[in-house]
C-alpha cells in the first residue's frame, strides 16, 4: 500500500483533519454528541491510518510502544487523580463540585479532566492493540521467510 500515490497523498491530507476532529469530539463532548471514548477512538484511527499507509516503523516512531503503555496508565491515573483531588479538597470521591469556585465551574473542570483521562486511555489502547496485532503479523512473516530460507538451505544441503 506504500506505493499507491493516491492513498499516500489522500491520507497525508486527511490525517491532520481526523486528529482535529478527534480533539473536537473530545472537548466539544459537553455540548454535542461525543466524549472521551469516541474521541479516543477517532484520534487513534489517525495513528492507525498513518501506520497502515506509511509503514509500521514510521507508525511506531510517531507513538513509540513504551509511550503507548505509559499513556494507557496515565489516562486511568488522570481519572482517579481527579477523584482523589476532589476527595482531598473536601468532597467525596469524584465529586467535582468542590474543584471550582462555583458548583458548575467545578463540574465543568472535573468532567473535562475525566473525559481527557478516558480519551487518553482509549486512544492509546486502540493504538497499542493495533501495534500488537501488526507486529505479530510482521513477526510471522519474518519467521516464514526465515523458515523458507532454512528449508531451501536444507534442500540444497541434501542435494
Amino acid at each position, binding site marked *: 500500500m506504500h506505493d499507491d500515490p493516491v492513498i499516500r497523498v489522500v491520507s497525508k491530507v486527511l490525517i491532520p483533519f481526523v486528529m482535529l476532529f478527534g480533539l473536537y469530539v473530545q472537548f466539544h463532548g459537553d455540548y454535542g454528541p461525543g466524549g472521551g471514548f469516541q474521541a479516543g477512538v477517532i484520534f487513534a484511527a489517525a495513528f492507525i491510518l498513518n501506520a497502515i499507509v506509511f509503514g*509500521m516503523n514510521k507508525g511506531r516512531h510517531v507513538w513509540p510502544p513504551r509511550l503507548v503503555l505509559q499513556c494507557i496508565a496515565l489516562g486511568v491515573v488522570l481519572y482517579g487523580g481527579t477523584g482523589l483531588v476532589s476527595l482531598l479538597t473536601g468532597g467525596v470521591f469524584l465529586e467535582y463540585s468542590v474543584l471550582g469556585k462555583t458548583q458548575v465551574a467545578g*463540574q465543568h473542570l472535573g468532567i473535562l479532566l475525566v473525559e481527557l483521562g478516558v480519551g487518553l486511555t482509549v486512544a492509546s489502547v486502540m493504538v497499542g492493540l493495533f501495534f500488537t496485532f501488526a507486529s505479530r503479523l510482521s513477526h510471522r512473516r519474518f519467521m516464514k521467510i526465515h523458515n523458507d530460507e532454512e528449508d531451501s538451505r536444507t534442500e540444497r544441503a541434501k542435494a
Partner: protein
Amino acid sequence: MSEFFLNAILMIFLAFIAIMAIRQNRLFGVVMLSGAYSLVAATWFVVADAVDVAFTEAAVGAGVSTVLALGTLSLVGVEEKKRPIEPFALVIALGTGLLLLLAVLDMPSYGLATTPVQLHVGPHYLLESEREIGVPNVVTSVLASYRGFDTFGETVVVFTAAIGVFLIIGGWTRAARSGQETPPVNEKRSNHPQEKSDA
C-alpha cells in the same frame, strides 16, 4: 409513520447483512459485512435518537474493530474451516434465541413513559442537570458526573483488557524482554528489512 418504515428498512437490512455474514465462508467477506452491520446499526441508533451510542458504534464497530479483525485474519488465514452442523449446538442456539424473543415480548414498549427507567433517576437527570452540572449534553453529565464511578470502572476495564491482550499475544513478558524468545514487539527487530512489510 415514516419512522416506522425507516426502522423496518434498517431492521431488514441488518437481518440481511447478518444472514449474509453467516452464509459467507470467506472470512474477509465476513469482516467487511460485520463492519457494514455496525454502520447500519449506527444509522439505526441515530434514528432512535441515541446519537452518542451511534457515534461509538460507527467509530469502534465499523472502524477500529474492522481493522483489528483484518489484522487477525492475516494471522489466521481467510478461509473458514468446513464443519458439519452439530445438532446439539443448533438446539441450544435456537432455544436461546427463542427464550430471548419471549423475553422481548415481556418488555415495555419502546419509549413508554411509565417504565421504571423513566421514573427513577431519569427525570432528575433531565430536569436538574442544567442547574447542577451546567453541561448541555445530558449524556455527558450522566456519564462523567452522575455516573462517574461507572465510567471510572469502564476505563479501568479498558486498561485491564489491554494489559491482558498485550501479555497474551503481545509477548510483553519478562521472558521476551530478556530475549529468550523472539519477541513480537521489540524495537530492535523492526530494523530488519523483511519486517518493513505491514498490514
